[in-house]
């Protein structure tokens, strides 16, 4: 039985339920593909040694009468999500040998559903970056062109799905970290509404942005994972239930942002817009004047929260602990050795923008801009179901091409707004530019993931 690893979750679930295949067959198919390609692609930092055992248990649960669309489905998990008893390093030397002491809530929910965890996937260290080049354990290569990046920060998770080394995956999205690699690798990536998925047990990067999201081959598959992991959690006080935001009725209107610069992806975006018009959607031009400040606002907030979130890594309670001549030296040595260059850079920048003399000029202004943008989005969603933009302004770049950190930051122009405002957004594979995949991004009103899924399915031809 070959190529089971190429099935979608939905297809595999149907075959499992019909008894045509077992979870062990599925797991073995993925493991065989991992064996073949992981050395070259550097997708998994670790493949778990109990995958077949997990799959056998899933088969037994099915025999005992259980059924869930994820029962026996092999998934890849980003290295910043805790699985009890397994390592979780956030691709950092700092946590290289850290073993998780509890399950993240998303993991607990996936275990209850019976999903099989294949391994932990490579990422930019502490989810800081956009290409997985900031991993302490080497970059993940793009399955479509191994000289190029897979995107990031969830590059391993997206590449695992694109290369059929997993049926689906979990990533986390702080400024596009699920959608960016989904675009570069040609798969679906969804960032839910802020708070709709618990972050208990997820290593924090920027707490006012971070969300866990699914990466999958189809919109339907992303929906299956999302519906399994979402919901309010007593262990995450920022989590929300599905009824917090008012329900939106379908308008069949797509919003496009006025005055957006042309990019390599514009042509494909126009074509996709026409496809939707042919399916009965109308297109409306919308104005988001604060968008021009989005990147600056995003990065100021990112630096500030990163510098405070990562202050917990001091070599005292867990993680890398190096000794110097004094306690202050212990800290300085552990943090110099444990953190990579981009992480250190952001901690220094965050310390700067939060310092007494500059706080108002940077962090204070960023807070204002963020609130203005949120209001502009809210107004826009009175008239449209989703806002359509490219996910990334370009195709995946060559590994090592963006040496200047600022040039890498600028690639996040389309993805950061949804994190600033907390809106849900999805990247849908839309075609090829220069032979490489690009994605189209849809953003919806708070709590209206249904619109993303509906329009996403229309774009991918999954509508019934």
């Amino acid at each position: 039985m070959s190529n089971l690893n190429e099935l979608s979750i939905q297809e595999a679930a149907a075959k499992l339920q019909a008894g045509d295949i077992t979870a062990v067959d599925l797991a073995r198919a993925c493991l065989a593909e991992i064996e073949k390609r992981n050395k070259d692609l550097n997708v998994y930092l670790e493949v778990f040694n109990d995958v077949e055992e997990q799959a056998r248990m899933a088969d037994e649960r099915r025999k005992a009468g259980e059924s869930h669309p994820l029962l026996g489905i092999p998934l890849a998990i980003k290295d910043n999500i805790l699985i009890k008893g397994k390592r979780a390093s956030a691709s950092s030397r700092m946590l290289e040998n850290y073993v998780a002491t509890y399950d993240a809530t998303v993991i607990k929910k996936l275990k209850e559903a019976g999903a099989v965890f294949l391994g932990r996937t490579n990422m930019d260290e502490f989810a800081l970056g956009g290409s997985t080049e900031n991993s302490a354990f080497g970059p993940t290569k793009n399955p479509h062109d191994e000289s190029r990046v897979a995107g990031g920060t969830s590059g391993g998770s997206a590449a695992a799905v694109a290369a059929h080394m997993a049926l689906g995956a979990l990533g986390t999205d702080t400024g596009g970290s699920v959608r960016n690699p989904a675009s570069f690798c040609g798969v679906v990536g969804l960032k839910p509404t802020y708070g709709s998925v618990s972050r208990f047990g997820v290593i924090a990067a920027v707490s006012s942005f971070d969300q866990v999201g699914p990466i999958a081959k189809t919109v339907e598959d992303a929906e299956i994972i999302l519906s399994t992991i979402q919901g309010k959690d007593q262990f995450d006080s920022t989590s929300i239930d599905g009824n917090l935001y008012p329900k939106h009725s379908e308008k069949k209107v797509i919003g496009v942002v006025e005055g957006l610069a042309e990019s390599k992806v514009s042509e494909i975006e126009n074509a996709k817009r026409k496809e939707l018009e042919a399916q009965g959607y109308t297109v409306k031009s919308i104005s988001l004047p604060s968008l021009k400040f989005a990147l600056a606002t995003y990065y100021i907030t990112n630096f500030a929260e990163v510098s405070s979130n990562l202050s917990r890594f001091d070599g005292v309670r867990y993680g890398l602990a190096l000794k110097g001549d004094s306690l202050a030296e212990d800290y300085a040595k552990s943090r110099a050795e444990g953190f990579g260059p981009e992480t250190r850079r952001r901690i220094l920048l965050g310390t700067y923008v939060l310092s007494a003399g500059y706080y108002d000029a940077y962090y204070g202004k960023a807070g204002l801009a963020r609130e203005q943008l949120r209001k502009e989005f809210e107004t826009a969603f009175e008239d449209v179901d989703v806002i359509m933009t490219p996910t990334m302004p370009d195709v995946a770049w060559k590994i090592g091409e963006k040496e200047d950190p600022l040039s890498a930051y600028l690639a996040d122009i389309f993805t950061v707004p949804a994190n600033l405002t907390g809106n849900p957004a999805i990247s849908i594979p839309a075609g090829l530019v220069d032979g490489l995949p690009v994605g189209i991004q849809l953003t919806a009103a708070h709590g209206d993931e249904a619109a993303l899924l509906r329009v996403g399915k229309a774009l991918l031809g999954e509508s019934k």
Partner: protein
Amino acid sequence: MISKEDIQKLAELSRIKLTEAETESLQKDISNILDYVGQVSAIEGSADKNVPLNHNVMRDDVPYEEGSALKDARNAIVDAFPKKEKDYNSVRKIIQKDE
């Protein structure tokens, strides 16, 4: 351009030891990045008038019960301490005599 002394001060505040070469490259990178994000100065309005949408959500101040998931997690966290005495995390002395 941000000064070398400023970079060293930031490193000290951040508890990160920097090499000479790193201090220089950070001086350049951080200056470029601050120039870029400095465009937020064009945003009108005063930061102290910004009322955040979010508010704190507190849990009840009661101890976790024996056998609960969080009690187990607590014990696992204690087990992960690099050095411990009983349930205490053993850290080195912070107050030191000036030589």
